[in-house]
């Protein structure tokens, strides 16, 4: 069996805020087609890593190699164009636009109509518009929000908003889908729906990077896990191994107890 292809490789990534080392010397590799978990106690630097990866923060050191090419000093929109789409820890939908429009905006980066096309509304623009709407609707169906396609995003129930944000990210045709705590605040049923959605997304060919606090979800669906603590990598590997790693247990519980995922 050949070594699985790596999609994203980080080497020595560091980010400082003043004197605080939010990230220090972080290395990891995400393989093509896996669900890669990113865990760690609060303030460990998970979201900072997301922001550095997606170009919202400039990193201080290190580099990312994405899909064979470096991902250096790109702006967030350029990162999205390269094929990394993300969601946000505190949902950031376009609140006063409909669910469908939210997803249609996700198609922006893969479509081309400009001002003159918009005003002239020529055959090419009309065809593109149609394709955008069709694809957006398909994605709403895919995540299970299509029955509320015309509702304003801010009026959707919480679980729908989370899934809508995923649909919007998928609309950019990403190679890597980066999810920042998608299960936060969800009940058990909603989390189960989410887990099966993530399985579907992976099955359909998109690699997933997942920040999550819900250990049961992480251990259940992630192939491999990276653990951060105080901005440093303390463990990386298959979920089952990481879970027994003493450093990880210490970081989470301050003691040598095995993480109890069966009842957690």
């Amino acid at each position: 069996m050949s070594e699985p292809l790596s999609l994203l490789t980080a080497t020595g990534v560091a980010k400082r805020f003043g004197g605080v080392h939010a990230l220090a010397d972080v290395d990891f590799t995400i393989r093509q087609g896996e669900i890669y978990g990113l865990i760690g106690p609060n303030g460990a630097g998970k979201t900072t890593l997301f922001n550095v990866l997606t170009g919202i923060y400039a990193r201080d050191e290190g580099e990312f190699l994405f899909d064979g090419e470096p991902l250096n000093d790109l702006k967030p929109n350029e990162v999205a164009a390269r094929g990394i789409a993300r969601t946000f820890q505190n949902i950031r939908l376009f609140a006063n636009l409909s669910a469908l429009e939210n997803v249609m905006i996700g198609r922006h980066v893969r479509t081309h109509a400009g001002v003159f096309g918009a005003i002239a509304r020529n055959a090419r623009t009309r065809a593109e518009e149609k394709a955008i709407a069709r694809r957006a609707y398909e994605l709403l169906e895919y995540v299970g929000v299509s029955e509320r396609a015309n509702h304003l995003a801010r009026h959707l129930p919480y679980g729908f908003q989370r899934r809508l944000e995923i649909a919007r990210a998928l609309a950019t045709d990403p190679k890597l889908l980066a999810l920042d705590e998608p299960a936060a605040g969800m009940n058990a049923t909603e989390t189960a729906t989410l887990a099966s959605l993530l399985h579907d997304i992976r099955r359909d060919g998109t690699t997933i990077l997942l920040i999550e606090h819900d250990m049961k979800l992480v251990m259940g669906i992630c192939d491999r896990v990276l653990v951060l603590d105080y901005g440093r990598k303390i463990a990386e590997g298959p979920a089952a191994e990481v879970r027994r790693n003493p450093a990880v247990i210490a970081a989470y519980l301050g003691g040598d107890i095995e993480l109890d995922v069966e009842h957690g």
Partner: protein
Amino acid sequence: MRLLFDRSKNPRIAWVGIALMTLALLALPFALASVGTAWVRITNLAILYCFLALGLNIVVGFAGLLDLGYIAFYAVGAYVYALLASPHFNLHLPFWIILPIGAAVACLFGVLLGTPTLKLRGDYLAIVTLGFGEIVRIFLNNLSQPVNITNGPQGVYMIDPFRIGSFSFAQRQTIGGLDFSGPVKYYYLLLAALLIAIMVNLRLQDSRIGRAWEAIREDEIAARAMGINTRNMKLLAFAMGASFGGIAGGMFSAIQGFISPESFILVESVMVLSMVVLGGMGNVFGVVLGALLLSFIPEVLRYTVGPVQQAVFGRTLIDPEVTRMLLFGFALVLMMLFRPAGIWPSALRKRELEAGRT
């Protein structure tokens, strides 16, 4: 409106509606002229304000960039026209050449304003744009020395009207037994321009570009994460809005025949912004309605405040000019209290209600 113009649902009623509306708009200047030519002029200015408000709507309503100096682009367009078609430089270029030049120059000014303000939002952007508007006005006021470019506070006069060959928009003419005065001719031209502006606005809004603007308005960080080049899109919004202002300015110059920096003071910017906000930010027809109301209400008050005081008290207690602005301000406050989203808010909420019922 929906019912009248939705051709897909009810084609016959829609066509009758459109026909009636067209007829009414065509006959309007003659009805107004019978009351007094002044009212045709007032209507023309109102249409010009609609045009301006539609331009500002692109910046404020679609992209959510608060611009308090919008009148500067109007001024730029007006001065470009005035300088290229008046005895001031003894240039008399035809209007179909100058209007695009005016739009292009205003567009350039739009980018000039947009570039340094890309990182600003809300209040901060409002302050910078306000300053920009004042800078432009002060420049126009002072560019009479050492080289006389704008003729300073005296303004530019004897500006050419629109002319196509021997057909002048300023001259009274009898065509087919109907008496067309200058303002009536301009009315038709302005109406055509307004209809084009409405169409451009509607099409822009319902396009990839319009959605990108709305995304920036709603959440700039999320918009960037979705791959929208927010820098280019914001500059585009400024440039588009400014072009509208530039064209409106050119038309203003030609219609008035005289312009001075006085016409482009801060209050004018505030007025146009009020039209957009009052009518319903982001909704094209709401903005047009807002512009019409805010153009006509002060004029109606001008003609009624004095006589009403005469009738009630037997004499004029308060200067009509003062009362007019007082009542006007009062009306604005009331409207904002009772309809904060504007008189005619954007269709989204309505659409959502419809969806909620099914």
